[in-house]
């Protein structure tokens, strides 16, 4: 399990973004350079035909394992899954100390 102790720092955020891009690359079978091109507005669920509910479920489960978070039913909404930026914002919020 990877941990991101310093999300406040720019380095911590960059590490999280890299981890999420790697995860999406693993799910979609992309090369590292293709995943690197993902930006905040890049579309995910509902935009990529191969990213169906089963694939999204796998992605969220892998996110839980790699980031050490628990994703509840209520956490999952259209906004969070629609774009790479949405997913990144969700992961950041989950990792922030409360």
């Amino acid at each position, binding site marked *: 399990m990877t941990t991101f102790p310093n999300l406040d720092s720019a380095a911590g955020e960059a590490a999280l973004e890299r981890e999420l891009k790697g995860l999406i690359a*693993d*799910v979609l*079978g992309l090369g590292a350079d293709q995943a690197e091109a993902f930006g905040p507005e890049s579309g995910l669920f509902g935009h990529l035909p*191969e990213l*169906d509910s089963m694939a*999204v*479920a*796998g992605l969220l489960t892998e996110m839980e394992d790699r980031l050490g978070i628990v994703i509840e*039913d209520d956490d999952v909404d259209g906004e969070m*899954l629609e774009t790479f930026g949405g997913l990144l914002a969700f992961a950041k919020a989950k990792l922030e100390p409360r």
Partner: protein
Amino acid sequence: MIFTWNNPAESNGGWAEELLVGFDRGRPVRVLVLPAWFDEANKLRRFTIEVMRRLDRAGIDSLLPDLPGCNESLSPLKSQTLEGWRSAAVAAADAVGATHVLAIRAGALLAPEHLPGWHYAAQSGPQLLRGMIRARTIAAREAGVAETSEALMATGRAEGLVMGGWHIGPAMFRALETAEPAVGPGQSEIAQTAIGGPGLWMRAEPDEDAEQAGRLAALISQSLGNPAQ
């Protein structure tokens, strides 16, 4: 390469004929392959067969039986139980004269403990159910229907549940809630980290990876005392 095996545990008529993919040249080591389940079975099918091809080249027989309720089986999936599949795995091992077992992902829940062998990236029953329930709630939400994991779990226990198109009966559902792979004597675990690269079960679409298949086959071959190639 395509054979059949008879499952005597089937109560309906005494036995049922199921298909079997095999690389069978009557060699001393005969590996029973228990594949991943449901959606993962599709995603890992080409990988699984590629591992078998490579084992064949390394002088090892391997046999991949259909379990009742899967692929071309005449039995309905929804009437299958975990115990029934465990019996079927033992019956298949006997039918093909298996000396070893390679269990992949949830297939590890069925590995006959009397056979030495390997569990590749084993998946527990709760992990399997969690992923399938989540797929169902996401699909429901997309369709504008509110479903909670909790309510779906209750339905699954009482009546069974269709998740991602797979109809799991109530007995199988309840058994999976606590099912953990048991590593029998002479069996060892092979984690994905030993294979390298991301597991193909994560892929949105079925895919293949010759390097990963090669590494798994090589690890198996080496643990049988064959030199590294």
